[in-house]
């Protein structure tokens, strides 16, 4: 009796130990990466670093044009991907009949998310840069990233719309509202937190993309800030790639400093998305 208990307790200890180790394997690299970036790159973060253009091929000066370029890119991406994504999400969840065509579209959208980003870049080069003559530009890059972001905005919009309780729709239709009025005044306001969460995450992903913008408009160094959507632009991930891989004698602090800024931009958008989701949930349950 006593020995049996001990062996059961032992196997319990072993199981807990394994679970703990597995969790540690997940968490430790994340912590190490973040610490490494903060410790090595923290010193680079000065007011000038954030507000000045680079000099000496990025070895001195700041990274302001790259920060600005990344924000422009996020903005351009979301201006296209959010409305198109929401409208397509409404169509797919509210209007499209459940037939093979709709199912094919849904499957295609899900698989769009799995297409390697460099393939989007190539697509953008062929369509926006060359065929539409937008050139290597902020516009081409935004449209390219928007195509990639659509997979996410459509999917999250559709999920958020489907999650709106059917009782609300029926209540609205039962007082003689049209379907569109119901969508506009009941369904979309209810789905909005979910839609916005998806949009913010899509923006944060667009901020981190390197491969596609490489071939549709990002430049390593430009003498002036972009003045129009048809100008080329600098962007944080591409800047990081170049200073880390292509400029000899680059100070280590600068490289990690760029990484730190990029990380902060991306993480802050992820945190924003989480806050929006939590607040919406709290509002739903507290009333």
């Amino acid at each position, binding site marked *: 009796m006593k020995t049996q208990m001990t062996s059961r307790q032992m196997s319990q200890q072993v199981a807990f130990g394994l679970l703990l180790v597995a969790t540690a394997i997940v968490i430790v690299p994340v912590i190490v990466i973040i610490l490494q970036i903060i410790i090595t790159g923290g010193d680079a973060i000065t007011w000038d670093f954030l507000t000045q253009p680079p000099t000496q091929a990025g070895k001195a000066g700041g990274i302001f044009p790259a920060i600005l370029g990344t924000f422009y890119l996020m903005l351009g991406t979301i201006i296209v991907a959010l409305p198109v994504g929401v409208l397509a999400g409404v169509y797919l969840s509210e209007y499209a009949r459940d037939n093979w065509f709709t199912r094919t579209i849904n499957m295609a959208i899900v698989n769009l998310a799995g297409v390697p980003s460099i393939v989007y870049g190539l697509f953008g080069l062929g369509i926006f840069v060359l065929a539409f003559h937008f050139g290597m530009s902020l516009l081409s890059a935004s449209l390219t990233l928007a195509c990639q972001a659509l997979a996410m905005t459509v999917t999250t919009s559709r999920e958020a719309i489907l999650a709106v*309780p059917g009782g609300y729709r*029926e209540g609205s239709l039962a007082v*003689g*509202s049209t379907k569109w009025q119901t969508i506009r005044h009941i369904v979309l306001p209810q789905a909005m937190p979910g839609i916005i969460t998806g949009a913010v995450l899509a923006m944060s992903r667009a901020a981190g993309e390197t491969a596609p913008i490489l071939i549709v408009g990002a430049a390593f160094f430009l003498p002036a800030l972009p003045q129009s959507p048809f100008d080329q632009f600098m962007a944080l991930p591409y800047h990081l790639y170049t200073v880390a891989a292509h400029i000899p004698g680059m100070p280590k602090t600068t490289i990690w400093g760029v990484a730190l800024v990029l990380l902060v931009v991306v993480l802050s958008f992820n945190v924003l998305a989480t806050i929006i989701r939590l607040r919406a949930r709290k509002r739903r349950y507290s009333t």
Partner: protein
Amino acid sequence: MNINVELTDKKAAVNGEVRMSTKDLSLYYGSFQALRDISLDIPENAITAVIGPSGCGKSTFLRLFNRMNDLITGVKVEGRVELDGINIYDKDIDVVELRKKVGMVFQKPNPFPMSVFENVAYGPRRHGRKNRTELVDIVEKSLKQAALWEEVEDKLEQSALALSGGQQQRLCIARVLAVEPEVILMDEPCSALDPIATLRIEDLMRNLSESYTIVIVTHNMQQAARVSDMSAFFMMEEDRAGILVEYGPTAEIFTNPKDKRTEDYITGRFG
């Protein structure tokens, strides 16, 4: 089980005009027949109760009158459903206009996640009423009609979701009243409510039946006996299609049913 029908409260005779009716009506979900050959007249300004065991198509039947079944894919309707003699399943019928005339209250209270005021003003707003004073009047009138005004008078701007279940259901009734319907359909409106809230809704229904035509689906025999003027007893046949077994004044259905199956059901022998 013996159900005491309060005969005194009933309208002496329901001789009013026929407001809605179905004629040889059958309904299919795909290849499954849910309703078979139902012909029934709904009298004006009275309460008609639809009773019967689970799954006999009561709710499906109710949802014919405002074409709520249209939302389900694969539904096919044969026969006629009339409002004032016009077949509401005709091709040129404007479903939105129909639903304005034939309002519906659902099983589970479903107030919108907005203020009490906005819930009631929702319908009128969608129908183009924009004037604030006009809306204020409509909201007050509708809430008074729904016997809710005194309880929410000073919480009009608060969330409707903060109201109790019974208040929410009366709010949903006010929301329907605000678009000035002629017929009100109620799909087990008290099944999610406690007995006191249930009685309040029943009182309200009695009052509303002075000027509205009401059709109610209910699982609760006593409720049908208490509130309705007419009762329709539904059952399903072997292939699970719902049929109308007996229809008549509630007092007769409950005290002197003509059909053995009706008697068995209301005396609690099955269902």
